[in-house]
């Protein structure tokens, strides 16, 4: 019976989680608890953090990180859509520059970060730039892929019925490529988030990453884990939001 099997799976999953937490607790205590950070040590730190006792500027840092992500993402979407459409609509340009774009994708993005730090300094600007760089590629490539997969027959038929370029775009191409596009937008957001967070951790004066570095530098490992958890909530939350919007967008096309 499928219902019983599903319950078994959930039971095993919870059991595994409990087991891992238990092992972590025991191992964390046996080893230097400062390094091991058993879950029991994290809870009081988490409480202190959320009550703004350990890091009173938590809300400000969180806000800064969110603003950096938002800015990076807006820029990435604008540039990604723009470049993607330009490459997609003009075949020759697309064929020439598309592979060059894809080749850059084969380079781990972190190599650009030192250059960005040189140019923008340690402020928010370098994090936004890095987030932008990371998020731009999947969006542009998704636009390109989306356009390529539109059945050219549909465009021919629309034109035969006298549709102008804008109409062709709105009524034929957009619905056909929406699925791929939305997927790319979602990946782009995830990567923007990662870019900003990585940028902050690799060197920043403010933001969640800076707090994490601060805690780590002072060996306040409990606080460090608590900060990581809060950042994690931010990251997962943004992806959940994106997936909800994706579903909504999917609803529009069906």
């Amino acid at each position: 019976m499928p219902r019983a099997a599903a319950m078994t799976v959930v039971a095993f999953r919870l059991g595994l989680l409990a087991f891992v937490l238990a092992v972590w607790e025991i191992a964390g205590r046996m080893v230097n608890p400062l390094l091991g950070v058993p879950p029991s040590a994290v809870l009081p730190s988490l409480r202190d953090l959320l009550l703004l006792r350990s890091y009173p500027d938590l809300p400000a840092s969180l806000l800064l990180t969110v603003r950096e992500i938002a800015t990076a993402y807006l820029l990435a979407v604008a540039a990604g859509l723009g470049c993607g459409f330009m490459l997609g609509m003009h075949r020759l340009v697309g064929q020439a520059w598309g592979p060059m774009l894809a080749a850059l994708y084969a380079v781990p993005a972190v190599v650009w970060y030192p250059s960005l730090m040189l140019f923008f300094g340690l402020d928010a600007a370098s994090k936004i730039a890095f987030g932008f760089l990371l998020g731009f590629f999947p969006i542009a490539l998704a636009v390109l892929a989306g356009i390529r997969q539109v059945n050219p027959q549909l465009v021919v038929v629309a034109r035969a019925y006298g549709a102008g370029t804008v109409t062709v775009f709105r009524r034929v191409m957009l619905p056909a490529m929406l699925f791929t596009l939305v997927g790319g937008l979602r990946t782009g957001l995830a990567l923007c988030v990662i870019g900003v967070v990585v940028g902050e951790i690799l060197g920043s004066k403010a933001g969640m990453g800076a707090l994490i570095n601060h805690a780590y530098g002072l060996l306040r490992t409990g606080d460090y884990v608590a900060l990581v958890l809060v950042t994690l909530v931010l990251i997962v939350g943004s992806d959940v939001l994106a997936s909800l919007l994706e579903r909504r967008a999917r609803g529009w096309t069906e």
Partner: protein
Amino acid sequence: MKVRILQLVTVIAGLGAWELVARAGWVDPLFVPAPSAVALALLRIGRGALAGLADTLGKTALAYVLSVVLGVSAGVVVGSVRLLRDVLSPYVIALYGIPKILVLPWIVLLLGYGTTPAVFYGVLHGCFPIMVLVMGAVRDVDRTLVTVARSYGATTWQLYWKVLLPAIVPSVLGGMRLGVVFCLLGVLVVEMFAGVRGMGHMLGSYANGFQAPELFAATALVSAASIAIVLVLDHVNDKLSRWRG
């Protein structure tokens, strides 16, 4: 043919424009050096940079081998045992999606500075995409092929060796191609964060020292190496996929 010409023209025009802009003084040479300055810097740092690159690539290679072995075996085991797959899938995907940079400080704390955290972190980055791809491929193996093999009396071992593994080769290759960039990424990040010897560290110190031409030169070097590796893997991928057409 026209495509190639346009690409070449783009690159040359881009470099040319960049050179002119830099010479004209429209950008601060401290931040944006001219391509000619970068080329000269490349010659200057040549030997040191190549040593750094070798260092980084060495760690990456080690991390890569471990990632492939771990990722493929874990992927095959978890993918082929129904219970394991059902229970572990969400965890694996969650771990894949979480930015591992968050645990980097802790890893450095535990493993110190040096090759170990770099390789460890590289494996952490590289094994997940491989594992996820392999898991998916195992799950999607054509059931008919398994039935056929069983009707011919295949033992469990033969099923794994002669049916499952050949069937998932395309996904393994795809994962390996993704994995190499991820491994390199992980190694570079640790080198930048923890000042471990290698290209990552070199890039970081050039940036801190405001040595823009050297920084650009080193960045170009790493990028070229990475692109070259991926191209080689793509080529190997094509060669091994003749039967797929």
